[in-house]
């Protein structure tokens, strides 16, 4: 399946990427993050949350569909 991965704020800066497509098998959020951290070592020391199709999820969430994954650094609205 193909995922769309979106990076925001300091994470877009750390990865030099705003959005990319990724081909992967069914996996947990934790598995996906491991893969992304290998690809972008600068993500290792960053604090962030993960949203799947615009809803926050935890690391055990299983990704089994072609979804939009967003990596969200600390919020700073207002």
């Amino acid at each position, binding site marked *: 399946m193909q995922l769309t991965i*979106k990076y925001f704020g300091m994470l877009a800066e750390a990865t030099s990427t705003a959005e990319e497509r990724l081909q992967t098998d069914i996996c947990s959020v934790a598995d996906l993050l491991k893969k992304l951290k290998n690809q972008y070592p600068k993500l290792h020391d960053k604090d962030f949350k993960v949203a799947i199709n615009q809803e926050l999820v935890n690391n055990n969430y299983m990704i089994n569909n072609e979804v939009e994954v967003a990596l969200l650094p600390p919020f700073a609205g207002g």
Partner: protein
Amino acid sequence: MEKKKPKNVFVQGAISSKFIGESIAKHQTKTSIGAHNIFLGQVRADEIDGKVITAIDYTAYEEMANQKFHEIREATFAKYNLTCMHIYHSLGAVTAGEICLFVFVSSPRRKVVFEALEFVVEAIKADVPVFGKEVFEDETHQWKQNT
């Protein structure tokens, strides 16, 4: 209450006092209102390690943010007896001293608008995926984090 699609809360750049003034004026026809309350978030020129912040450059996960603003709006209307509510947030660069967040709640009575406004502003700070790059005078930057 009728279900509505999320509105776009974002405006490009700072929110002007003219826009805020006109928003107030538009409510003169809504004569069941007895009390308005307004929150204006302003960019602070904080000094950090000897360098002064000159602007915050805002970005957002816009689709999710608008959905979250919508949920906050629904939750606030469910909790408080409000006549109307408006939220505007900046995207892009907002210079120190300029307004980046405008929240406007109105009700027949005053007590409810004090509580409702705080509820809305705290929910925005905690739940909405907006990101702020704090730009210093020497064009270096750091990332803002709500506390």
